[in-house]
């Protein structure tokens, strides 16, 4: 084989690779759009008036996840199944975002942390690599960390809306989450940087709880005003 033949063959391989990436990019764009729609929908919970119809918002969001599932389904067909990590960078970000959104919905519904398996199910993908298109553990954890920041905000806004009990529950949740993350030996990568931000969320929520308890508002919360749950 002559040198030029070899390079022609290589060029063919590279072009095929680029075509695949182009296809993936298109689907990922659509996914990002859906993710934005869900986010906009869920942002409503921060508004005072939004607290009442959280269950309705969650239900709507869950409907949107149907679209996500079909889009992810089409993403799976765009590349050879055994080369997930070759193109991982393309959907990494949007997948983290979707994990966050799913985790947020689950938290609003049940105030628990969504498991990796449950997220994978909501998104219509696998939790285990051997099963096919899966959710990478780092992406899952990254999405969960985004949830922590969102909850810090929610704690603040709950107080504004007159709900004094929710911040206390959020505080318990975040503390457990923080202890969980402390177990992990993270490398100096993006996940580690995200994790470094968690303590600010913890701090923010602690401040809210402190403000409530110094005024005795936390007692009131357990008494009457209460949340919608």
């Amino acid at each position, binding site marked *: *084989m*002559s*040198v*030029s033949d*070899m*390079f*022609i063959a*290589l*060029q063919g*391989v*590279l*072009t095929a690779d*680029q075509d695949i990436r182009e296809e993936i990019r298109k689907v990922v764009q659509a996914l990002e759009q859906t993710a934005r729609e869900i986010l906009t929908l869920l942002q409503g919970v921060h508004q005072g008036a939004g607290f009442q119809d959280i269950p309705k918002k969650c239900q709507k969001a869950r409907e949107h996840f149907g679209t996500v599932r079909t889009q992810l389904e089409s993403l799976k067909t765009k590349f050879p199944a*055994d*080369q*997930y*990590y*070759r193109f*991982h960078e393309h959907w990494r970000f949007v997948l983290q975002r979707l994990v966050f959104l799913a985790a947020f919905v689950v938290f609003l519904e049940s105030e628990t*942390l969504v*498991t*990796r398996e449950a997220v994978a199910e909501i998104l219509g993908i696998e939790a285990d*690599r051997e099963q096919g298109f899966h959710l990478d*553990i*780092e992406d899952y*954890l990254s999405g969960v960390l985004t949830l922590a920041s969102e909850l810090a905000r929610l704690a603040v806004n709950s107080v504004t809306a007159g709900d004094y009990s929710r911040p206390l529950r959020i505080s*318990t949740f975040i*503390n*457990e*989450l923080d*202890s*969980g*993350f402390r*177990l*992990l*030996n*993270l*490398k*100096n990568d993006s996940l*580690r*940087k995200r994790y*470094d931000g968690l*303590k600010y969320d913890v*701090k923010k929520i*602690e401040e809210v709880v402190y403000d409530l308890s110094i005024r005795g508002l936390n007692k009131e919360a357990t008494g009457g005003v209460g949340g919608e749950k």
Partner: protein
Amino acid sequence: MSGKEGSGGFRKRKHDNFPHGQRKEEKENVNPSSALMTSFKSFQLELDTRHDKYERLVKLSRDITIESKRTIFLLHRFTSAPNGEEILNESEVKLDAVRRKIKQVAQELIGEDMYQFHRAISPGLQEYVEAVSFQYFIKTRSLISVEEINKQLIFTVENREETTNMTSNSHDKQPHTWSLKVTPVDYLLGVADLTGELMRLCISSVGNGDIDTPFELSQFLRQIYDGFTFIGNTGPYEVSKKLYTLKQSLAKVENACYTLKVRGSEIPKHMLADVFSTKTELIDQEEGLS
């Protein structure tokens, strides 16, 4: 990068001596056997396993790089040594050692998605491509193909004890043959590096009074350069980046050929070495800078 890491570490420390009493109190509230904590314990295990594997591969990759570099240095002595056959044999032995390392990499990757750990092993593979293609060029004066390289990277279980020592996990599903594929991009980057070695070979061969090799090399380098321009920017960023260095190497070789042609007619053969020894120094200095 390091700056960011530094600030991360700093923030962490600052955080740790933040509200200590309060922290401890809360920690006791957390039930260590809750569902959340249990799942995080399994995450810890999973992440540690993954990081450990990554680190082992980085280490192997480094070993591969070092051994490949040594092989290249050895092959550079080929031009000056009268016993060329011996050097080629020695390089073959060294490359076999490198291939044994690559076999370990392949064993680590059994049942894994190779691209997940690609960043760890890519530098080593590129260096290996460089060494093996350099040896191939010296032997056959032509470019080794990706297929040829990959053919040498199919391993079989011939030496049993070695395989049992390696890879403690994944014992059960060990296949009888397994292979590691050099990706096209790794191959291209290795070949791009090869051109730098060929440039050195060209200059030193003039020093040895070998007049034909430079012309042969410039011909060969031009073919490779044409190939790379054909690929242009279809490839990833790294490939286009190497194009510049490749162009420089080619220019050096072409200039050497020019000098040989012009001055060669007037300078007696045994003095050509002096003309080029000053040139080589210049080139080496530039190389050191880049």
